[in-house]
């Protein structure tokens, strides 16, 4: 019964689809985190994506972007994604911010033979043995963000570090990644809660351990609370901080102000990158939204460009993932981070840069790109990925 109903439904749907293949816009499901502590992360990804899809087209192909909030709840995201798959006929998904959400939705999308392009989360669980031909990450594999911070800590000569990250997949990837490259001693390691906003106990533990520097990974609102409380505990100026991009984006910087001066950040992108694509992007984003793009915005934009290139070269064919993949893998677009290519597990291979928070001549705080920390870094899991 179920089988015949599904077959009937499939044929009923397939007929007009074929006939309208050229006319109907490609539906893109953008399920992201728009509320809660990570709310502005998803909003930046969405806004930058829509900026690239201005005029309803990506790579010259008409697209219809369906935006939904996942509220940082894996179950809610799963429900929305399944509704998109079953009743909206969406075959191409993007938007995810948090790794725990991605781990819940990616299997549903991929089992259905649809395509997932992550603009942010790149958990280790999907980068190695369980990689998938229809799963692409445009941002980074989680670990590499923090590997670059580990390398940066070596470069800055820190010998004893205290590490903190929330207790969720990306938090564990963060600590693993940092330790993979950091050569000194880890004097303390602490997992916070993903919904925690008061870090007073952690501050006391840091003071007691008295490390050379602190590495912490707290994205979005968590990072704001962490750095402000770090300042209130009197630790700013005493114990330096080494961070990866998500722990000190331009929004966090705006919120914490002078407390962040002198902090060292590693990133694959910064608003001051001197390439034509980036200049166009930053100017257009500021003009449209009246705020500086965060690193999330840059990733949302690159994701839209990558999808645009793939749509263009595949003639807008998202029904056939193999055709789409052939068009996607060459990454035939001008990334705002300069160079970009996909590694064997369809995660990026890219350069990492050391930035430092400085006060500019106009009195405003800015992340200033200082040096290159890692070159053409893929990730530690790609060799176990067999596609």
């Amino acid at each position, binding site marked *: 019964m179920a089988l015949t109903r599904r077959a009937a439904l499939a044929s009923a749907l397939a007929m007009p689809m074929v006939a309208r293949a050229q006319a109907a816009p490609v539906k893109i499901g953008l399920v992201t985190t*728009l*509320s*809660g*502590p990570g*709310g*502005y992360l998803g*909003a930046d990804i969405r806004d930058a994506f829509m900026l690239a899809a201005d005029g309803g087209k990506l790579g010259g192909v008409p697209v219809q972007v369906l935006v939904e909030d996942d*509220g940082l709840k894996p179950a809610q995201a799963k429900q929305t994604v399944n509704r998109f798959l079953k009743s909206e006929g969406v075959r191409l998904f993007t938007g995810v911010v948090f790794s725990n959400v991605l781990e819940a939705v990616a299997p549903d999308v991929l089992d259905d033979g649809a395509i997932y392009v992550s603009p942010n989360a790149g958990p280790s669980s999907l980068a190695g043995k369980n990689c998938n031909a229809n799963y692409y990450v445009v941002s980074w594999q989680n670990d590499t963000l923090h590997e670059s911070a580990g390398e940066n800590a070596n470069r800055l000569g820190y010998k004893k570090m205290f590490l903190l990250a929330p*207790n969720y997949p990306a938090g*564990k990837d963060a600590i693993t990644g940092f330790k993979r490259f950091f050569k000194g001693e880890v004097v303390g*390691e*602490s*997992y*916070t*809660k993903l*919904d925690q*906003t*008061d870090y*007073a*106990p*952690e501050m*006391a*533990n840091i*003071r*007691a351990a008295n490390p050379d520097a602190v590495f912490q990974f707290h994205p*979005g*609102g*968590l990072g*704001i*609370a962490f750095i*402000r*409380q770090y300042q*209130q*505990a*009197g630790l700013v100026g005493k114990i330096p901080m080494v961070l990866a991009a998500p722990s000190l984006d331009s*929004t966090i910087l705006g*919120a*914490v102000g002078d407390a962040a001066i002198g902090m060292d950040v590693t990133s694959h992108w910064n608003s001051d990158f001197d390439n034509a694509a980036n200049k166009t992007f930053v100017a257009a984003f500021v003009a449209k939204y009246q705020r500086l793009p965060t690193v999330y915005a840059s990733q949302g934009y690159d994701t839209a460009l990558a999808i645009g290139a793939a749509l263009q070269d595949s003639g807008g064919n998202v029904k056939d993932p193999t055709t789409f993949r052939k068009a996607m893998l060459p990454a035939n677009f001008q990334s705002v981070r300069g160079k970009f290519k996909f590694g064997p597990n369809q995660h990026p291979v890219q350069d990492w840069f050391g930035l430092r928070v400085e006060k500019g001549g106009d009195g405003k705080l800015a992340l200033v790109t200082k040096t290159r920390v890692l070159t053409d870094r893929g990730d530690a899991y790609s060799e176990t990925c067999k596609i």
Partner: protein
Amino acid sequence: MTLLAEQLLNGLQYGVTLFLLAAGLTLVFGIMGLINLAHGSLYMVGAFVAARTQAGSGSFLLAVGAGMAVAALVGMLMEVTILRRLYLRDHLDQVLATFGLILFFNEAMAMIFGRQPMMAAIPDFLSGSVTFIPGVPYPIYRLAIIAVGAAVAAILYGLIVHTRIGMLVRAGAAHRDMVRALGVRIGVLYTLVFGLGALLAGLAGAMVGPLLSVQVGMGDRILISTFVVIVIGGLGSIRGALAGAMLVGMVDTLARAYLPAVLKLMMAASDADGFGAGLSSMASMMLMAVVLIIRPRGLFPGHG
């Protein structure tokens, strides 16, 4: 030793924040028999209004006043327009309706204030830290929160034990129908109690603004801990709310601070960190389970 003293202060400060929320929630439950999931939303409203007022006027005291006032007004409005219809319904209807209110308030805040987290600055007269434990500078602002919480507890005690309205509140919690039969205008009392609860939630929200980031959904997370507090303390009891808040504040803080270190004595360091983190986030829940086994109606049960 100094570390322990500092952690105890942290636990006390967290407990005080929880108490401000739990006091209102437990009163509303004790007197109206209403489960109000939207209590955390009032905390969020207070935080947003205070942060916005402070950014606009530069005055912290004005901001706290505005946060409390608006939260109380919104709370009373909510009681008069929506919640009043729910008192006689069963708890499931109440949970459903107040959950709807959470979604409403989250969206409303996002529309009014935007999704970017807002920041409130610590006022100059409360910034900096004092070193009264040698070697441990403790932020003055956190001490101020502890002081405010203690003052609120004292005022509430006075209000409930020594005033006429407090007597009605106690009577209402114990024998609702009898109070009504004696001709007390229970509707007005309900609105006032709800307003008081909302006022305290607004105060908590306004005070944590400079510590945490003020953002949509901030009330949802603390709400769970608040419910744990009132279940431990005994539903409907202010004294229970105070005891429960202090217990949860201390247990949560100390577990987070010491559990991973204790576990490291027994297992490999990396396992201890992961396991300790998981265990410490469960600590207050386990405390609740233990209390419920020993005293099924909480530490200081109200009447019902």
